[in-house]
């Protein structure tokens, strides 16, 4: 008896500990970032976010090109991937909800999440970039091939599994009696999906999209390979750009000057804040729009 109570207490302690540990960890991240980037924080202040010039030679750092690069590629990626992911989810849960074919597609989607990002980068560089270049040649713009649009496409493929898996999960949780009630009233399958299933699972689907967006924001390797790594402000959807994650990956190893290092760490801090902010806003929207 005694032993049992102790175990229970121990279990509780572990649970509390782990939950608390996570908060400490995130807080620790935040403090470290601020301390390490203090030099650049004090030197550039708010101008760091609005500055368009990133010049390691003169020691002048502004992160606007990277901030916009990250946001544009991620949201564009999400816009491209969201309808596809949603259709896959509906298809898997309402049309082919069991059987061999269902398993094949489901595994394929899950497999997509497991592929290392560098493989996506390779695929982008060797398969997608030539295609985009052909397209650019045919419409008469600079045939870079790499750039923001190319990155957005690769990102959109990489984040399909996140939206698709979570959406499939929440769609399959829509109570059968609600659906059957709709059918018995004479609703067609399309009407059931549109009027019952999607509204019912809306917040879950949105949460899936949010997770996918988070993944797109932080994606480093694949994007670095195909975005063109140009540190100037993007002027069109096809122009080369750079993201916050890829500029850190590119420049951190050889950065020796202390201002330079601290500016790179400040980009890390900025990425951290942007991700946190988007997540919080997302959570707020989910809370406000729950319909059932």
């Amino acid at each position, binding site marked *: 008896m005694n032993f049992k109570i102790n175990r229970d207490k121990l279990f509780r302690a*572990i*649970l509390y500990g*782990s*939950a608390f*540990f*996570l908060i400490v*960890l995130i807080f620790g991240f935040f403090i470290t970032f601020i301390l390490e980037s203090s030099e650049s924080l004090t030197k550039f202040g708010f101008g760091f976010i609005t500055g368009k*010039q*990133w*010049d*390691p*030679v*003169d020691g002048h750092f502004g992160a606007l090109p990277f901030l916009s690069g990250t946001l544009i590629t991620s949201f564009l990626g999400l816009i491209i991937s969201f309808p596809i992911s949603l259709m896959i989810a509906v298809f898997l849960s309402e049309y082919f909800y069991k059987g061999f074919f269902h398993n094949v597609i489901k595994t394929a989607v899950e497999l997509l999440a497991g592929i290392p990002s560098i493989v996506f980068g390779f695929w982008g*560089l060797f398969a997608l*970039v*030539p295609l985009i*270049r052909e397209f650019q040649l045919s419409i008469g713009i*600079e*045939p*870079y*091939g*790499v750039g923001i649009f190319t990155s957005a496409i690769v990102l959109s493929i990489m984040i399909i599994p996140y939206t698709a898996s979570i959406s499939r999960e929440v769609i399959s949780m829509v109570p059968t009696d609600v659906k059957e009630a709709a059918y018995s009233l004479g609703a067609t399958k399309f009407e059931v999906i549109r009027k019952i299933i999607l509204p019912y699972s809306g917040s879950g689907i949105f949460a899936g999209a949010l997770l996918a967006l988070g993944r797109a924001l932080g994606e480093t390797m694949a994007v*670095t*390979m195909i975005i*063109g*790594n*140009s*540190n100037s402000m993007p002027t069109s959807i096809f122009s*080369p750009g*750079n993201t916050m994650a*890829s500029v850190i*990956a*590119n*420049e*951190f*190893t*050889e*950065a*020796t000057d202390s201002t330079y290092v601290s500016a790179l760490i400040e980009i890390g801090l900025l990425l951290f804040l942007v991700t946190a902010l988007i997540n919080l806003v997302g959570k707020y929207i989910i809370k406000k729009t729950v319909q059932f």
Partner: protein
Amino acid sequence: MKKISLIIIALMIVLTLQTNSQNIKALKEKAMGTSEILGAGATFPFPFYSKVFDEYNKIKGVKVNYQAIGSGGGIKQLTSKTVDFGATDAFMDGKELNEAGKPIVHIPTCLGAVVVTYNIPGNPKLKLTGDVVSAIFLGQITSWTDKRITSLNKGVKLPNQKIVVIHRSDGSGTTFIFSDYLTKVSKEWESKVGRGKSLDWPVGLGGKGNQGVAGLVQQTPGSIGYVELVYSKSNNMPAALIKNSSGNYIEPTMNSVSLSANIDLPTDTRVSLTNSNSAQGYPMSSFTWLILYKELNYNNRDYKHAKVLVDLIWWLVHNGEKYAQPLNYSPLPQQALKKAETILKSVTYNGKPILK
């Protein structure tokens, strides 16, 4: 379930962090007790070093653990005293040497060079001057049929294509050598861009690493970029002849790169070889150095360990040089070797020279 996996992940992170620092410690201790030498730094000479260290291990039984983490990392690791020697493509400047506290010596080991490579139909041999290269990379010359290019290349058929500039996106010694040369030959480059391992490029696309630049150049019609000589040789990429300070167009070869060091070298060999006044030298060349503390009695290092380290470097600049050429590296010319010998002889333990 979620929380348990979180704990596991957190534990894994903590554990890997700890094993990392323990590893370094263990290696360090091992290095002190036995004869394992630790080094870290430049990626450019890595194939050469790893071949030489491997041969040395076969002959003398001395293990050398060299981590190719980049020149900047090599300097950091040496000054934080976690390695026995560092390696760098760009010599430490006065400020960095001051910050290191104690005197550091540079020992040149071989030479590298940067070549200008391109992708135009047929890939003919092009002749370029520093001014033209600078204007292309500044975005002022935008077409292959620009007069400034065609007048240098009479009889060569150049395409009526736009020039796509490709540069390195990661911080790199290659970029440093390239921009160091352009800074010397072009006032405009000096004021607009300058020299550094990472630059504020006015135009162009960035590729990560030599392979990234090479990949973009090979894919993009009408492109121009720069890569290491070693890389261009092993991938059969075209390389432009560059006009040197004596007015000769020099093809980048292992020989012409070695010849660029045929000048009066300062005693510490900390010199930039770009645009050197050697008549037959290729103008975008550079030494690559090993760096170590001049006084090796620090952090409880014993005499034996110091001796093993100095012997290793002595062997590298003498017997090791024969492994350079097969790997497309340019060996040290005689007079640079003499300087390296003098510097190595000045390395001390407790104030006494280790080599006699």
